[in-house]
């Protein structure tokens, strides 16, 4: 399997549709239960390059405990996690490493860009020759958390935003069927 090619799945809801083109209530219930389960047990990858990693460690520890939201274990291997929190500056030398880690994560996978450096290069936007100006030039980002560094409460707010986004997503459900050509 070529790890560099992006995996584009066929939409799985098609096989469950009925005569009107929509999916029935069993599929919608299964979908919402799956979303609820996924959002309440996201396991992040331990990936911190610079100063924001220290605020990430503060969020892990006992005062701002994040395991009460389901982020129980921080895995070291990307094959076993489904969330990558990019905390810190990404340079041109580190960018291929980040892309390879992202490719190794199994689907469905989510990305949070934490801190000003990951959103747009931050204080290093002008006058720096080796900083990638924003991690969304490399991998697709779901939630942006501003701050330099963002407080632990801000990180928890970002994670709860991601949980809401997952709960409202629709993987198998079709609500507006596409019009066929001969209709």
């Amino acid at each position, binding site marked *: 399997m070529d790890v560099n090619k992006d995996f584009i799945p066929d939409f799985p809801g098609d096989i469950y549709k009925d005569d009107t083109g929509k999916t029935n209530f069993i599929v919608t219930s299964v979908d919402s239960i799956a979303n609820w389960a996924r959002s309440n047990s996201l396991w992040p990858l331990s990936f911190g390059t610079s100063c924001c990693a*220290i605020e990430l460690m503060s969020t892990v520890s006992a005062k701002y405990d994040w395991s009460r939201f389901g982020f129980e274990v921080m895995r070291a291997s990307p094959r076993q996690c489904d969330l990558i929190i990019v905390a810190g500056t990404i340079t041109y030398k580190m960018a291929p490493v980040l892309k390879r880690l992202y490719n190794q994560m199994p689907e469905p996978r989510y990305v949070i860009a934490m801190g000003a450096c990951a959103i747009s290069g931050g204080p290093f936007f002008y006058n720096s020759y080796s*900083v990638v100006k924003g991690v969304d030039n490399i991998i697709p980002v779901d939630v942006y958390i501003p701050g330099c560094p963002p407080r632990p409460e801000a990180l928890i707010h970002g994670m709860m935003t991601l949980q809401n986004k997952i709960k409202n997503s629709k993987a198998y459900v079709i609500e507006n069927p596409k019009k066929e050509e001969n209709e």
Partner: protein
Amino acid sequence: MENNNNIPIDDLTEEFVVNIGPQHPSTHGVLRLQATLDGETIKDLLPVLGYIHRGIEKMTESLGYKQSIYLTSRMDYLSAHINNQACSLAIEKGMQIEVPERAKAIRIIMAELQRLTSHELWWGSCAMDLGAVTPFFLAFRDRERILDIFEGNTGNRLTMNYITPGGVMFDVLPNFASSIKELLVKVKEHLKEYEELITGNVIFQHRLKGVGILPRELAISMGCTGPVARASGISCDVRKYHPYDGYDKLDFKEIVIDGCDSWARYKVRMEEMKQSIHIIEQLIHNIPEGEFRAKVKGVIKLPVGEYYQRVETARGELGVYIVSDGGNKPYRMKFRAASFSNLGALKPITVGAKIGDLMASMATIDLVIPDIDR
């Protein structure tokens, strides 16, 4: 593998190269160590840097002096106050500014509190590298209390920019002294707990004693400073020999141990935490009244020449070398980082040892990688 032909056992194995990092579960940062291994014994070690090289020295050539101080907090982010202090002292030296007494006392208190937080985090992550997870949570308990004081007085928990040329940015809150007195009582209690938990623990003593021996001549030749050098018998505390900001009027001991191994480096840092508490206690009872900042012009211009200022951060000696051509931007600003020379000592002390010993040595040398790469 069957040894049918009586080949000597060493020729049956072969060496292979393993990359430790740049993404790994320890908390030091993005360092890649290319280790050539024979079984579990390390034959050669090559550090590859540059994964967090942000070009700070080139950036200072296009920013003014006040903006460059903002960047120094992000280099060794665990000693952010002390980095700002180094840059401010270099600028004050060039412009011949006299800092008021109140500002000097506040600067020393903030710097010593910062040293306490840095050593607490070192203690937690050192124990975590060796396998124990509980000390990590215990260390952050104390660290969060000190960060509450920082946040109330300066506005930020990690990258403060509070110490500026001329003094400090704002005055401290009225309950500064009383909140620190309460905090120090708790920290002293917890330090006794830590001594029982890790220092008196047989497993940690066996993991650290006799591991990673750095002889005195090698430490001098490699340019090591800070706790790494003081654990090899070299007396080199910048606060004693080149004092700044009023350290010469305070009474504190310089901790020098002759052990040369990881256990000595561990003990030096634990004793330094107690000395930091002693320094804060001398100052907190009578902070002098007065101004908190001397008057400084809006645009800072240093006279032509070269200036060098050294301070003692939690990791060693930080040097700021400014070459000025009279304009409002520095011609060249170089930061002599403490972890850069300490990294050079990693290879000679781990060649021939096992991977577990490499982790113990790296945990006690206490590297912060953005300080190395700048």
